[in-house]
């Protein structure tokens, strides 16, 4: 890790491990936005990792952002931290000044007329709590005010707000940016993959810790080979996801949107891993892990939600597979080794 990465890592782990308590997550699931924590997240610059220094950001890379995104997943932070981090990067790409406050992503159908944004986005993360949203319409990045937006509240299975947001002539700032047509879905998949890698790391360490504590038949259950073998699988899955998401972020830093190959690979890989890993984590935890009281489900329910957001693994796999088949069997190895 370089110096910025060490600072970011200490800052985000320190803040989230202290503040994201079980009570805080439970309250968030009951609909209470953790405003104090949000302010601290912003004050620590965590939503501005990808914003240039002259605009009050950290001037970081995606490799740096990965640290924050993984920590957000690992600590199950009930905030649109990942969304704001990406929204602010989109704004930066278009040269739009990054505002303070909660900014979310608007992934929907919008039209821009006379500087006003109209349309609808479903499943908007924390739409009800956000002051602004970022949409991408015809190559333009648009920062829209959500004052006066019609919000129909909804949640995903992790009980994170996923609201339907309807805008009619919302005040907006729009600028062209050199982003691919599927930028929202593509980079959305990247932030989710990183969060998932973080959550998978949590499942692994938490399950090992539990197996060392829980005693049955006179010894910690982690002493049984049947449990050890399961935990070994869980940990290798988490490790694989850590690597592929780091790789995807590094490739975005290196080749921009041409890293769609690695982003797709990352989302596919973490989706696959999440099925295996959530199953093992629950099996190792037994009945206690199936209770609301125990916090394991905060991570597993997020993984079940996130794997389907911004394209499920199967969708990205179809895209990647069609490209691979179209390029021809003999092109695969040269392509893989050229990255």
């Amino acid at each position: 890790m370089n110096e910025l990465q060490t600072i970011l890592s200490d800052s985000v782990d320190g803040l989230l491990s202290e503040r994201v308590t079980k009570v805080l997550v439970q309250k968030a699931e009951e609909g209470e936005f953790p405003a104090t924590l949000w302010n601290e997240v912003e004050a620590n610059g965590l939503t501005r990792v990808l914003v240039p220094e002259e605009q009050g950001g950290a001037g970081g890379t995606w490799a740096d952002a990965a640290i924050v995104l993984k920590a957000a997943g690992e600590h199950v932070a009930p905030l649109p931290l990942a969304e704001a981090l990406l929204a602010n990067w989109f704004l930066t790409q278009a040269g739009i000044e990054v505002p303070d406050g909660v900014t979310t992503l608007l992934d929907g159908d919008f039209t821009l007329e006379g500087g006003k944004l109209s349309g609808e986005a479903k499943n908007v993360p924390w739409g009800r709590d956000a002051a602004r949203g970022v949409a991408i319409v015809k190559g333009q990045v648009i920062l829209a005010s959500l004052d006066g937006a019609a919000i129909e509240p909804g949640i995903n299975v992790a009980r994170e707000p996923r609201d339907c947001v309807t805008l009619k002539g919302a005040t907006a700032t729009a600028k062209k940016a050199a982003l691919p047509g599927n930028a929202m879905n593509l980079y959305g998949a990247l932030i989710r993959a990183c969060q998932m890698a973080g959550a998978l790391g949590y499942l692994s360490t938490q399950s090992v810790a539990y197996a060392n504590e829980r005693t049955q038949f006179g010894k910690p259950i982690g002493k049984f080979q049947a449990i050890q073998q399961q935990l070994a699988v869980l940990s290798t899955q988490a490790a694989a996801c850590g690597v592929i998401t780091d790789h995807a972020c590094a490739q975005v830093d290196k080749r921009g949107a041409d890293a769609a190959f690695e982003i797709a690979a990352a989302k596919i890989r973490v989706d696959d891993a999440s099925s295996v890993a959530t199953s093992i984590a629950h099996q190792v935890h037994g009945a206690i892990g199936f209770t609301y009281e125990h916090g394991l489900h905060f991570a597993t329910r997020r993984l079940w939600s996130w794997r389907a957001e911004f394209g499920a693994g199967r969708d990205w796999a179809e895209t990647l597979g069609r490209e691979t088949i179209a390029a021809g069997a003999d092109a695969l190895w040269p392509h893989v080794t050229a990255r």
Partner: protein
Amino acid sequence: MQPFRFDLCELPGETEGLRQEIRAFLAEELKHVPKVTRAQTWSGSDAEFSRKMGAKGWIGMTWPKKYGGHERSFFDRYVMLEEMLAAGAPVGAHWIGDRQSGPLLLRFGTEEQRQKILPRVAKGECYFCIGMSEPDSGSDLAATRTRAEKVDGGYKVNGTKLWTSGAHHAHYMIALFRTDFAPEAKHSGLTQFLVDLKTTNGITIRPIKDLAGNAHFNEVVFEDAFVPDSMMVGTEGGGWGQVTAELAFERSGPERYLSSFMLMVEMIRELGKRDGAEGAREVGRLVAHLVTLRQMSLSVAGMLEKGENPALEASVVKDLGAIFEQDMPVRAHELLGTAPTVGEGNDYEQVLGYLTQTVPSFSLRGGTREILRGIIARGLGLR
């Protein structure tokens, strides 16, 4: 915290020239080799090919020049390995000497052993096999029973080694023998020896046919075979620690996820003849896993280059690699439903035939799945 670290590792740009040189060499050398033969890759043995690789300087690449090596980086060696595997080159003859026996001798061998043997290995003329498993000692390696009893000037060896791949081609075996027979010396009573398979009396090598009818591995019986003192490797009683180091070399390479690549390629070729989302999705999944495994494998290479010990990380990659490769014939069958063939049929059918029958060994050889996961569990602090 996870006990293992997989830092990203990017190959230095200067390895690209080597990669292109190897590709050009392989395009010529493998021009007329059938795909099903290429599918054997490092299980396929071709002494002439090994000598050509030696002449190119592609064996013992990281070793000191004074032992016939080329003092190149682990990254250069990694590029060579992955290109050979992806193309399905018949690298089996020299593979073990290059991968683990040579490095073992560099670390624990005597000066005489190194000077006498390593230059020939690097030329692609001298081949090794691994004498670890026995009839009653598979995963439980410390249960090794083959006895090396001290006699005048050396040791008298009696016992049997089993599943010894390539013993019929090999010039030497690096063997793990028991030199202390006390019950409490289970681990501390083991010693490694260099055994000259071509000149030592009292050694019988019998081929064992595998389920596909091929005879890659053997039973090697020692009956009062004499091994001189000068052939001991490392210290008497130090065999367990040395073998553990050797296994880290054995498990750390890209062959642990690239032994079925030929099937992946031929499957993609077959799917190219038809259209469908299901096939595309499966290919996409396999590519995602391939790319992930390569990055993990590269990370292990980066640790080797830095002089770190990647034993735990190598176990992780080997376990995931075996799952990936064993899944491939299953996926191929689900998608295409083509009957695997032997000795006839198109490239895809034959490669499928070979690998369907071969992949069960991938989670057995070089440490079983259960042993690897036990190592990982120990790393996690569970045992």
